């Protein structure tokens, strides 16, 4: 099943999609705010024969991950027309510009006076990382006429390459290059929303992502997992998140004979850990919860069982020149100098030729986790992968498992 694509003309630097709004940051200090739900509705109204596919692909990707809906979807009398719509949608050339969506598009000054290296949106706050540190500003709702806050709060001084919010605990992680990996607790009720700064690792870290309560950090040359464990307080029954240790990539890929000379880029998100080797991409699963009582014989056993080797998928191209990676439910993304490659969860491979200005996936998102945004010099392509609805979530190698109850966030 082919992905579906919507192209929006314009010159952009970064994108976010959050709570029914598409945010397009340009390089001139403006943010374009698009009422995404309204836009998708208008496209669906104009294309009634594929309206369900349009809504599922672009604004309600969670629907088909719901177990009750999945049972209905497995009914051949339902599945066939839905797949038919998705196939028809993939053949459409959906293309728009600001003029087409003028009613649902407004432009405001960005709350940040620098060109961000990365952004994220979390609990209605926009976070921006840059050479000068980490900043945040409140986000106003998509339907309000109130603009974004003009004043940004500064949270950290380091030069930051990535900022990633957690979907498991209310926390933010930042990759600060040679300064290492940091995290902050997010405090919804306080004016300064980030607190409890903690340096998780002093190892170089140019990228990071969340693996449940733990944080994966990596560069093109090394990788580690800042491992946390969860413990329930016997009296209060409250779950605590406790730092365990830094786990090296050798331990993650324990079952292979780890050859340093053949150690390509390692990265991960949620339960999936990947390593590029000369053979292909090696996959390990991370078990974030300890084994149930009676199945463990102590702490050492727990450690050994934390990572299970899932296998290797072969590549018919050289992946040693990969420059960035990402993981979503629909697959894992590899960036090369001249193209993006998506290793799909159904075993397929999708190539997007051309050198992007930026790209991003939304692993934490409830509604948009099937989207890949690719910003080119003159446009943004919003690509929706629809194959993953029909993939067995428990056995896939590329992409992390998506369930219907994935997005329950606990307070730190």
């Amino acid at each position, binding site marked *: 099943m082919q992905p579906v694509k919507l192209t929006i003309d314009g010159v952009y630097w970064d994108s976010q999609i959050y709570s029914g709004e598409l945010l397009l940051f340009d390089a001139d*200090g403006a943010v374009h705010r698009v009422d995404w739900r309204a836009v998708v509705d208008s496209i669906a109204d104009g294309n009634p024969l594929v309206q369900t596919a349009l809504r599922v692909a672009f604004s309600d990707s969670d629907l088909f991950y719901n177990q009750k809906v999945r049972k209905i979807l497995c009914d051949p009398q339902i599945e066939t027309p839905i797949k038919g719509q998705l196939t028809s949608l993939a053949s459409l050339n959906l293309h728009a510009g600001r003029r087409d969506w003028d009613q649902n598009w407004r432009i405001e000054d960005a709350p940040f006076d620098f*060109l961000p*290296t990365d952004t994220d949106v979390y609990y209605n706050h926009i976070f921006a990382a840059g050479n000068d540190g980490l900043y945040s500003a409140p986000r106003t709702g998509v339907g309000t006429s109130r603009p974004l806050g003009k004043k940004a709060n500064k949270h950290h001084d380091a030069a930051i*390459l990535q900022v990633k919010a957690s979907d498991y605990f209310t926390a933010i992680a930042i990759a600060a*290059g*040679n300064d290492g990996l940091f995290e902050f607790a997010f405090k919804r009720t306080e004016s300064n929303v980030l607190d409890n700064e903690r340096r998780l690792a002093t190892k170089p870290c140019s990228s990071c992502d969340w693996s449940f309560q733990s944080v994966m950090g990596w560069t093109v*040359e090394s990788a580690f997992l800042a491992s946390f464990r969860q413990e329930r307080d016997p009296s209060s029954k409250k779950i605590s998140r406790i730092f365990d240790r830094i786990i090296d990539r050798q331990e993650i890929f324990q079952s292979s004979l780890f050859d340093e000379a053949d150690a390509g880029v390692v990265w991960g998100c949620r339960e999936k850990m990947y390593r590029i080797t000369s053979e292909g991409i090696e996959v390990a699963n991370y078990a974030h919860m300890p084994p149930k009582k009676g199945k463990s014989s102590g702490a050492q056993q727990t450690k050994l069982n934390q990572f299970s080797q899932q296998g290797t998928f072969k590549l018919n191209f050289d992946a040693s020149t990969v420059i960035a990676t990402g993981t979503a439910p629909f697959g894992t993304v590899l960036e090369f*100098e001249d193209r993006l490659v998506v290793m799909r969860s159904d075993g397929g491979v999708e190539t997007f030729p051309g*050198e992007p200005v930026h790209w991003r996936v939304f692993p934490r998102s409830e509604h948009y986790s099937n989207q890949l945004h690719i910003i*080119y010099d003159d446009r943004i392509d919003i690509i929706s992968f629809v194959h993953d609805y029909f993939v067995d979530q428990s056995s896939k190698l590329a992409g992390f498992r998506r369930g219907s109850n994935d997005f329950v966030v606990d307070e730190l």
Partner: protein
Amino acid sequence: MNSTLPYQWQRFKFTQKAEEFGDRGHWGTRNMPYTPHPQHRSAAYAAIKSQWSIAVNDEHDCYHTATANGWTCGGYFWGLYAPRQVPAQLGLSPSPNQYPLQIAKFVGDAVGNWHGYPVAHWLSPFDKPDTPVLQAWLNAGFITRPTMAKIHRGKRCSL
């Protein structure tokens, strides 16, 4: 160069303005003497220091071009080696990787003497030029927007 920047990025003031260094085209020779550092041209240091792969004269030219164009930010000058208006390799990262490098960083000492070395912008945030310098390179046609984005975001790329 500053006037070509979007107003939002004007906050990044250049730490050393052209007029502080003297007449255009003479900064490197008159007020800012340049002395190549021997450790960046020594096999004995190749495992810990990046190494120039261009001739010493070209290293001087790289520095003079950077100063003449005001490619400065954060107290450093940032250079390219572009004999045919296309950035070419100017050095290698330390072994064993020995990545080909196309950006040079020039630093001054306490007495105003300068030296430089090739940098791998993706290995350290301190070794990537800030927005004004990248914008200047973009405006001059040395890099594309995707390349500018990669450098800014600390991703490996060739210019």
